[in-house]
C-alpha cells in the first residue's frame, strides 16, 4: 500500500462510529511496549542492531497468517517531513518516532486501527485504536497481536519485572490505556484542575491530545494510566474504565447545569463558534480548535443539528498544519495556512449543513436550529 492512501483520509474508517459515549469520548487507544532480549534499547543501540530488530519484527508480522489485517511497512527515513507530520497529526506515529533520522519504521494496518512502531523508544510498540469508549475491544486486539508475535520474537521479560522496557515508567505490563475525551463543560466551569489533581493521586494522568507536554487545545484531554507495574492488565483497564466513566458523568452533569443555568450564554457561544467557522476568512489553529469544540458541544447538546460528530472529527484532524499543506498540495506560510484553514472548514461545515435536512422540514432557508 502506498503512503498516500494513509495521508489522504482525514479520519480512518474505524473512527466512523457513533454510540452512547461518542458525545464525550472521541477514541480509545491501547499501547503495549515490548523489547527483544539480547539487543540494546534504541537509546544506545547500533544501526546494525536496529536493522536486526526491524527484520525480526517485519518477518514475524509477514509470517503470521493469524493476524487480522495486512500491514503496510514504511521506514521513517524514507518519508518527507510533511508526510511524517501528517502521520503524527493522525496519531499513527509518535512525534518521537517522526524525528528519527536513521532508524525507526512503522507497520500500519489498512484501516489504520493498528500501528506497530518499530525502534521508537522501545523495539516494539503495538498500538490499537477504536472509536468512542471501547477499552476492552482495543485491548483484546492488541493482546491478540502480542500473543501472535511472542511466538516468534524473543521478548525481554523477567518474572519479577515483567516486560522490560527502556523507561522504568513502562515496565511490567508495558500497557498504556488512553481515552481521548472532549470536556468543554468541565473546562468552562473550572473543574478540570481539580480532576487532574485527583487523577494524579490515583496513578493516572490527563494530558493534551498530543501526549506529554501538549496543551488541552479544543478542550480535548487524554486520560491514561501512569502505573504499569504491580497491577494486572485487567486492573489497569478496570481503573481507567471507572475513572473515565466518572469523568463522563461529571461532564454530562456540567453540561446539564450549563443548559439549565446559562442557556442563553451557552447558545450564544455555540452559534458564534458556528458563525465563525462558516464565515471567517482567516482562522488560526487555536481559534479553529476552540470554535470546533464549541460547535461540537452544540451538536452534542442538540442545539445544532445537521452536523455529524464524524465530520467534526475530520475537521479537527485536517485543520492541522501538515494536513492542511498536504490538502493544498504545497508548502504554505503561516498566514496562508490560516486562510486555507478557514476555507477548508467553511466548505466542510457548509457542505454538512446542506447535505443534511434543515430543521424546519425543508420549508424555509433557516439552516440552523434557531
Amino acid at each position: 500500500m502506498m503512503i498516500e492512501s494513509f495521508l489522504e483520509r482525514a479520519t480512518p474508517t474505524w473512527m466512523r462510529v457513533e454510540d452512547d459515549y461518542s458525545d464525550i469520548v472521541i477514541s480509545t487507544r491501547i499501547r503495549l511496549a515490548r523489547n527483544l532480549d539480547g539487543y540494546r534499547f534504541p537509546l544506545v543501540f547500533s544501526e546494525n542492531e536496529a536493522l536486526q530488530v526491524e527484520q525480526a519484527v517485519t518477518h514475524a508480522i509477514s509470517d503470521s497468517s493469524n493476524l487480522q489485517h495486512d500491514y503496510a511497512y514504511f521506514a521513517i527515513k524514507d518519508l518527507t517531513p510533511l508526510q511524517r507530520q501528517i502521520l503524527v497529526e493522525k496519531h499513527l506515529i509518535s512525534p518521537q518516532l517522526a524525528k528519527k533520522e536513521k532508524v525507526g519504521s512503522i507497520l500500519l494496518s489498512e484501516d489504520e486501527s493498528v500501528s506497530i512502531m518499530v525502534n521508537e523508544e522501545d523495539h516494539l510498540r503495538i498500538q490499537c485504536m477504536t472509536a468512542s469508549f471501547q477499552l476492552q475491544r482495543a485491548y483484546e486486539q492488541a493482546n491478540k497481536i502480542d500473543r501472535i508475535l511472542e511466538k516468534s520474537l524473543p521478548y525481554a521479560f523477567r518474572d519479577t519485572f515483567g516486560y522490560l522496557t527502556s523507561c522504568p515508567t513502562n515496565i511490567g505490563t508495558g500497557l498504556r490505556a488512553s481515552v481521548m475525551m472532549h470536556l468543554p463543560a468541565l473546562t468552562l466551569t473550572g473543574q478540570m484542575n481539580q480532576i487532574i489533581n485527583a487523577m494524579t493521586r490515583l496513578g493516572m494522568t490527563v494530558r493534551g491530545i498530543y501526549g506529554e507536554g501538549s496543551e488541552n487545545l479544543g478542550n480535548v484531554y487524554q486520560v491514561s494510566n501512569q502505573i504499569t507495574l504491580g497491577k494486572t492488565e485487567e486492573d489497569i483497564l478496570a481503573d481507567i474504565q471507572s475513572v473515565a466513566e466518572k469523568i463522563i458523568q461529571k461532564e454530562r452533569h456540567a453540561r446539564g447545569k450549563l443548559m439549565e443555568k446559562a442557556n442563553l450564554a451557552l447558545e450564544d457561544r455555540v452559534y458564534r463558534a458556528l458563525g465563525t467557522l462558516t464565515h471567517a476568512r482567516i482562522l488560526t489553529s487555536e481559534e479553529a480548535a476552540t470554535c470546533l469544540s464549541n460547535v461540537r458541544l452544540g451538536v452534542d447538546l442538540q442545539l445544532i443539528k445537521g452536523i455529524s460528530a464524524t465530520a467534526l472529527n475530520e475537521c479537527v484532524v485536517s485543520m492541522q498544519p501538515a494536513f492542511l499543506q498536504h490538502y493544498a498540495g504545497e508548502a504554505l506560510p503561516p498566514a496562508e495556512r490560516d486562510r486555507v484553514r478557514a476555507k477548508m472548514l467553511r466548505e466542510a461545515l457548509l457542505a454538512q449543513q446542506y447535505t443534511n435536512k434543515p430543521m424546519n422540514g425543508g420549508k424555509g432557508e433557516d439552516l440552523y436550529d434557531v
Partner: protein
Amino acid sequence: MICEHCQQRNATVTVTQVQNGQKVEHHYCDVCASQFHPFHAEFKQEPISIQQLLSNWFGSPTWQKVGEKQQTPPPQQTCPQCGFTYKQFLKEGKFGCPSCYDAFNEHLPKLFNRIQAGPQHIGKMPGAHSNVYVIKKQIEDIRKRMKLAVDEEQFEEAAKLRDEVKELEKQLQFEGGDVS
C-alpha cells in the same frame, strides 16, 4: 515588541495559554511561530523529566552541601551486556538494554516501589513463561495446604500433597524454571 524566541525580529503572533489555571501570553515573530506546531509543547516549559526525578530520588541529594560526606555513595555497577553504569541510568532515566535490569537488580525494587504500584509484576506473561508461572503458583498453594495439614496432624494428606509438589517441581525443571 521583540520575539521572545529569536530575540531579533518583531513579535507579530500572540499565543495565549492557560497554565495551571493562569493565562499566559507569549509573543513570537512569524518565522519562529511557523516552526512551532500549534499542538506542541515548545511554547511552554518542559515538564520535569523522569531523569530529573530519578537523579533527585536515587542520585546525590541536591541539597547536599559541597564537602559534606555522602551517606550512601552512588552505586557503581556496570551492565556487562551494554556497559551502562547505574549512574548513567540515573542520568538518562532509561536503561541501556534488558540486561541492565539484572545488573541493577538490587536497587530496582526500591525505585519501582516509588514510581509504580509495587516491585512485582503480576500481569500477563509471554507464553513460554506462563507455564512456569502457573506451576510456581500451584506449588505455592499446595505448600500452604501441606503446612495446614501438618498443623492439623493430618499426615496422610500432607504426604499426598508433598508428592504432588515433587511432581510439579519435576515439571517446572522440564519447563526450564527455577525450582528454588
